[in-house]
């Protein structure tokens, strides 16, 4: 049984919220411990250890860490390049921590952007991500086709002067579905992805294929359908000349007629959202 969610309309949101904030707490804790000279591998290992200590046993995918121009996926040609390298962190360098732990059967997939010391350009990118969060929610509530929303996000990025870097992800996805995962004593992973989660994704893909939707939110024809109820891990990723920034968090889509309830962010108490609010207060 890949999916433990029996009713997509009433998923057990509390569990998802808990694991998501656990993951963000991990990101903040690890980000606070990053020093010049720490490598991507070490940063990924720090995330893994932190979460394992707190009971995480399975992963949607293992933690990633990208430093410097790797935050913008500069020169990425093959998916293996996503994996952490021995690149060392330097003062002023941007970094991204991306992890997807499974905790008590609930999955989170988060992305945390930061930089070591001052970097006004990186601050600008982070601030500009806010418009994307609003745009995506707004258009999902309008029940626009996922492919169209993707293109609108693309257009906003171009207007802002940025490059779309989520196009570098497998299938160019801006988001993918996440779900509950069966807890097994043994949960292996292949190429960094947990087999249980992959199984869930595959089964969604199979069902979706029959019904005309896809668990992957891509720029391609197979995403030319209205948002499918469920939980979507949304990850718009901006790139600008060797600096990249993203956030990733879960968007809940329901089949409610009320627009407010038809789609909403799982949790608004997240580092990037708090940061935007603080900036507004400061301004």
């Amino acid at each position, binding site marked *: 049984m890949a999916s433990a969610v029996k009713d997509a309309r009433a998923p057990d949101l509390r569990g998802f919220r808990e694991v998501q904030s656990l993951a963000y707490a991990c990101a903040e804790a690890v980000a606070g411990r990053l020093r010049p000279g720490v490598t991507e591998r070490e940063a990924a290992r720090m995330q893994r250890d932190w979460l394992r200590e707190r009971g995480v046993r399975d992963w949607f995918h293992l933690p990633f860490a990208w430093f410097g121009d790797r935050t913008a996926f500069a020169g990425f040609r093959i998916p293996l390049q996503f994996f952490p390298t021995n690149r060392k962190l330097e003062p002023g360098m941007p970094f991204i921590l991306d992890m997807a732990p499974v905790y008590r059967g609930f999955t989170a997939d988060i992305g945390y952007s930061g930089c070591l010391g001052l970097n006004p*350009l990186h601050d*600008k990118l982070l601030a500009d991500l806010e418009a994307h969060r609003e745009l995506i929610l707004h258009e999902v509530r309008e029940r626009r086709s996922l492919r169209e929303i993707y293109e609108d996000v693309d257009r906003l990025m171009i*207007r*802002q*002067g940025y*490059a779309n870097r989520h196009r570098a992800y497998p299938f160019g996805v801006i988001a993918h579905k996440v779900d509950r995962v069966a807890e097994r004593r043994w949960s292996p992973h292949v190429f960094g992805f947990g087999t249980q989660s992959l199984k869930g994704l595959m089964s969604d893909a199979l069902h979706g294929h029959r019904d005309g939707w896809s668990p992957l939110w891509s720029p391609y024809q197979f995403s030319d359908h209205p948002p499918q109820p469920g939980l979507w891990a949304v990850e718009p990723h901006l790139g*600008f*000349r060797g600096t990249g920034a993203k956030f990733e968090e879960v968007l809940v889509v329901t089949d409610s007629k009320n627009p407010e309830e038809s789609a909403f962010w799982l949790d608004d108490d997240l580092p990037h959202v708090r940061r935007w609010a603080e900036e507004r207060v400061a301004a």
Partner: protein
Amino acid sequence: MSLLDLPGARERRVRTGGIELCVAELGEEGRPTVVLVHGYPDSKEVWTEVASRLADQWHVVLYDVRGHGRSTAPKPLRGGFTLEKLTDDFLAVANAVSPDRPVHLVGHDWGSVQSWEFVTVKRTEGRIASFTSMSGPSLDHFGHWIKQRMTRPTPRRVGQLLGQGAKSWYIYMLHTPVLPELAWRGPLGKRWPRMLQRLEKVPAGDYPTSSLPDDAAHGAWLYRDNVRARLSRPRTDAYAHVPVQLITPTGDVFLSEKLYDQLELWAPQLVRRSLDGKHWVPRTRPDQLASWISEFIAANEAAKENGGPVQNTAPTGAYADRFGGRLVLVTGAAGGIGRATAFAFAEAGARVVAVDRDAEGAARTAEMARLIGAPAAWGEAVDVSDEQAMEKLAEKVAAEYGIVDVLVNNAGIGLSGSFLDTTSEDWKNVLDVNLWGVIHGCRIFGRQMAERGQGGHIVNTASAAAYQPSRALPAYSTSKAAVLMLSECLRAELAERSIGVSAICPGIVNTNITATTRFAGADAAEEERLRKRTSRLYGLRNYPPERVADAILKAVVRNQAVVPVTPEARGARLLSRFSPGALRGIARLKPPL
């Protein structure tokens, strides 16, 4: 205008080692002092233009090197021009004009050669705050450079040796006895001003001064007293003890740029700049020199006050040495190639004016440009097809930001559809922006550049459609072919004013142009479908505008005439020259829309 005609100029004489030096001063005395040292065959008047620009901000000091201008010559001449004696002179001047503060040193040609000696010997430590060098290497570094290449003569090193060897022909001539003196006091001295105007593009005027024959005859001893001795036995401790800014003119016929390879070893705090120009840059490029010198002095003064080391002010992008601090204007800068070009120049440290019809987009480009290294950037909302608006823009830019060094006429719109469906209104729209926009830009800003007389560069964005005929793009191709030919003609005309003109032919590049292209003969719905379809096809091709921007910077640095960018643009260019029939065949194909 001679030096002493400048407002506030004053003269004094400094006695040292049995001779008398003529020293001129400009600007307020309380300010940091900058000492300008002239070269050969020159006198301090070579600096007039630069000095007048520096005098607003600094206390400017110039002196005639011994035996030159109104300074007296040592007796006997032989042995009177050694670098040790020149160092004595400099210290005497520095002590006279700025007894308790170190001075900023600027040298051109032999002035730079001797200044390298000043900044690398022990006894000047604490007397010099910074050094800007142009067109004059240290003889010691030069000696090591030759030795290195002789001891391990790889083909490349032999090439470099031979290249510089050929450029140094005049040094061998100056080592012959008596003849140079005779030539300078005879026909060469008479013809020299005309030669400078013709070969070096030095503007006519009261430079060189009437003392030229004597300066040149005496100055021959600079070479005879120092060159052989230093090149055969270069000092091994010639390390600069001050920050150095090296300004290399790229068109110098006497000095190879390769001379400065590995200069970082000798001058640890080195900032490199390069300038399109020939040897006599103090006469031909005074604006840029004055601004770089001022910037460098200011950075060093600020560092001294903060007590820390000099912050590296130079940006890090490609060609930063070339575009740092220069003024670049890009039209169509709210997106696509224009925006990417503005960013590329910004990364190289240029000041950027981003022009577009879309005010918000232009402002956004300027804002991001500032974040990635442009010391200043401005967004201007102007429609390039509007002549009056362009005139106004040019006035504003000249008054507030300065004369444009690099102009990129990039704004353009797309128009597709068969010729028979294209209305005269369509034609007018596309020609107004694509052709008239470029004409206005070249005419208005090109005139400003030409009137300033200090060079510059114009880049026009043409297209691969300029030489690839196509049944789908008759109007667009026509407009771009006109831009290509305009660029070629302008290049021919402006060459004598040292203004380069390049036409860029990008090809299929993933930009927003497809989303706004007008499709003649299609109704609104069909047009929308075609726009989406072309955008998708261009997206599949996915050639990024950033690479076109890189090609533009390279074209400016190398002064290339026509630059096809994408492989298909290059292929079509090749075919247009060797097999135009094939292109005509391709032109008949219907695009897959």
